[in-house]
């Protein structure tokens, strides 16, 4: 219980930061990525963002009311907004509205409040929601119908044109289709899923890289190169967080470093489509958002510096292993969840000795 009885003691200095300030910095750091995402994939992301934000705040308000806490004080820490934004990045932009709503419900209730709220969650709420949705609605989650995607449509649509926006709206709100306002030129009669052929797992992302060789520039708004720009903008956001000292360097450096190391070890030129090059692993997948924004969630990661290093190495290893030897294409959320479970143990094993601490010779049982 957060009682006030202690405020008659020093220090009296004005604290340097607030939780809402930290969260606001994270949101600001995600703005480049948000712009990039919308530019490449249309307003589906923004619709998802709106749904997750509003529903997320509502859910948090309801839960806080049920717990008997002051609602606006707890909503005001903006942590639910951060979860909402991260979840929106994870969801396909063409996903229907109820997917986003279910996702944020799972994130808020099962990812966060069931454990005690901010600071007490064992798992990263956004990662938990993403994996739950993946398991519950695999078709919706793995089918990326992207306006303007060269992989699926014959004609390339500008996702931010009027038609592109209209398409995004119809994808997010399926009931609009039934209202039959305007004939929809390209009807998705099914969802193209990622081919679960183990050997050619990286075919689609690999094709993106090959597109570069064919002369497409990275500024081209074709989904081929959107992923890399997105990863770069996440990296830029991560660097902003590092500069503002919101996160420490330990986790991002170790995650990225481990993935880089492992992918370099196993890479052979010409096997792009099978194991993927280091560049692919870092920039054509969600490694960047995972390393900077999801793995660094303070409540679910270890607190000590040594602990963070171990944690980062574990995440990188699991991430790479699932990609190569598991059945999921992008394993960021899953690997983070698995290693989140190890955080308390890592914390216990990496207790740092303080200055002048007497070392106990006998190990206590």
């Amino acid at each position, binding site marked *: 219980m957060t009682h006030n009885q202690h405020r008659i*003691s*020093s220090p*009296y200095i004005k*604290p340097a930061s*607030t939780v809402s300030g930290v969260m606001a910095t994270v949101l600001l750091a995600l703005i480049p990525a948000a712009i990039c995402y919308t530019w490449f994939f249309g307003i589906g992301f923004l619709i998802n963002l709106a749904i997750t934000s509003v529903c997320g705040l509502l859910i948090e308000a309801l839960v806080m009311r049920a717990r008997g806490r002051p609602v606006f004080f707890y909503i005001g820490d903006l942590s639910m907004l951060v979860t909402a934004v991260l979840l929106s990045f994870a969801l396909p932009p063409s996903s229907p509205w109820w997917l986003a709503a279910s996702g944020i419900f799972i994130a808020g209730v099962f990812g966060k409040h069931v454990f005690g709220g901010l600071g007490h969650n064992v798992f990263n709420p956004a990662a938990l929601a993403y994996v739950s949705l993946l398991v519950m609605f695999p078709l919706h989650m793995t089918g990326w119908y992207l306006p303007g995607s060269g992989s699926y449509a014959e004609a390339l649509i500008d996702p931010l044109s009027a038609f592109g926006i209209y398409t995004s709206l119809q994808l997010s709100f399926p009931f609009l289709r039934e209202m039959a306002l305007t004939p929809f030129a390209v009807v998705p009669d099914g969802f193209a899923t990622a081919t679960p052929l183990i050997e050619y797992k990286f075919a689609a992302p690999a094709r993106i890289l090959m597109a570069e060789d064919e002369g497409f520039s990275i500024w081209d708004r074709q989904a081929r190169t959107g992923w890399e720009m997105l990863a770069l903008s996440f990296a830029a956001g991560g660097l902003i967080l590092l500069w503002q000292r919101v996160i420490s360097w330990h986790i991002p450096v170790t995650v990225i470093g481990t993935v880089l190391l492992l992918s370099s070890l196993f890479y052979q030129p010409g096997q792009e489509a099978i194991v993927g090059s280091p560049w692919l692993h870092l920039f054509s997948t969600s490694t960047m958002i995972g390393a900077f924004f999801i793995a660094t969630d303070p409540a679910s990661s270890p607190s000590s510096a040594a602990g963070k290093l171990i944690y980062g190495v574990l995440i990188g290893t699991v991430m790479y292993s699932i990609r190569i030897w598991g059945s999921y294409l992008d394993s960021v959320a899953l690997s983070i969840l698995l290693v989140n479970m190890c955080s308390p143990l890592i914390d216990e094993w990496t207790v740092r000795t*303080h200055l002048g601490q007497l070392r106990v010779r006998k190990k206590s049982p």
Partner: protein
Amino acid sequence: MSRISRSLLIKKVIKPFLFRLAGKPGWLSPIHALPGGIFPAPNKQVSLQQKIVGMPSAQLAMPSQLILPLKQHQGDDAVPVVRPGQYVYKRQLIAAASGHGSVNLHAPTSGLITAIDHQLAAVNTRPQPGRPWQQSIDPRQTAIVIKTDGNDLTDPELPLPPLSITPWQQRPTDQLRQAVFDAGICGLGGAGFPTAIKLSASSIKTLIINGAECEPYITADEALMREYADEIVEGSQIIQTIIGAQDCVIGIEENKHEAIKAIQSAIAGLEAANPVSGLSVVKLVLVPAIYPSGGEKQLIRIVTGIQPMSGQRPSDVGVLCHSVATARAVFKAITDGEPLISRVTTVTGSALRNPVNVEVLIGTPVSHLLQFAGFDSSALERLLVGGPLMGYAVDDLETPVLKTSNCLLAASQQDIQSVEASSIPHRDCIRCDFCAPVCPVKLQPQTLYFSSRHQRHDSAVKNGILDCIECGACAAVCPSHIPLVAYYRDEKALIHEEADCGESSRWQALFEKHQQRQADNVVAVQQRKLEKLQHKLVSIAEGENPGKEPVVESGSPVSHKSAEQIKREIEAAVARTRARKAELLSKADANKDGGQ
């Protein structure tokens, strides 16, 4: 939001290294980096605009009364040696050290003793184990009150102390130490440990004089160094001689440029005029300006690299640390025979129009100084004695200045968090780990916070809560605004309480034993009665009368009864007694269960 720098790598490591390479004076000896630390906005220049104002002087008059608590130090109270109504001279002994760790108390000026058992109002803080003289509610501080007469007379019949005739270099160290004890000097840096006891430490290799005033707003030591550098350096020499330390180092923060220059010239001048044989010359070492590099153990670690283990004192590792103010007080006591009757205090804060350093008489009510400095009570948020990070708040404006009060901070909303803002409940810990990198003792504040909240004493002690210096760096950077130090203080108080007298569980056991004994007693009495009656029954049945025969007198009611009748009555009595015993036993059992 105020800006508190956490990124101090340049200050801690790179700058000292580069300066050492460049051969800048003061940086020549290698220093060690302080782990952690923060750099809050110093706010020091406002109070250094003018020189130290003396009391009494043309600018600052003497207060009408002085309130002198009997305990301004760590250790037992001093015992008054004067009576109410007595006239005392300046520098006269008014309370003598008695008991363990006590120091003398002297009258700062001449006047009339009006009370020797004046009760001070409660200071508005909770008990802090490291500073036992700040009691929270009870017991109340006892103080001697002097009504000043404005004449500032010293006893005309007092002989000149021998040390002011003969130079101290030619006096035995025992005499010097005794003079320090007689002068009632305690640590003026804030801790208040009796200096004479510290000076009796043996096998000290390094003496460190602490001029690193790292806390924001406080400039008392810096002003002292600017104006009285000679006295400080000579005082350091005296202390060095008394304890026989090989090295003497004065540590100053590197951003106090004028003070550094003054000390440097003082060292140069004094060494030329007053060389001390057998011991090294006094050295100046500059330390990076980080809070809390001025803490005793922190400065020792920075200057020498030695880390006293948990529970050890610096003297156990061959180091001794004194404040520059203490060094100057020792100098004045030895050369002039002046006991500790005044100290330099910074009077500052945004609620004052004229922040200044004052050489104030001990026992001056705070209101007198605030008035002098242009106090605006409407702007006052809190009145702090000490700095914003380690000071304590006082409600009563008649609180006296103690020997350990190095700063009076009349803080407005610009300086500290407003009372309103600090009254709202704090957020949960978000485990962001902003706190651990700034701890100068390398503790993990998160773990200590959770242990303190849930009163898990073993976990708190294991994680080093007893080594926490309560500097407040962790609470200053916490985004959830958790008052971490308050939790640690509570926990420490509980741990000390349990260690000192974990009596409540023992008393509970005694009480339960007492209840059990009482219940057993009553049952035992019934049991005895029962046995007696049974014995009687047996003897009647056997037709014998081993014990007392019921003497049946002619007139008594028993004479009408036959032996049978008597037997039946006895059996009935036995049955009643049995029933009563059973009832009592079951009641005792019920009490036992209820108490579990």
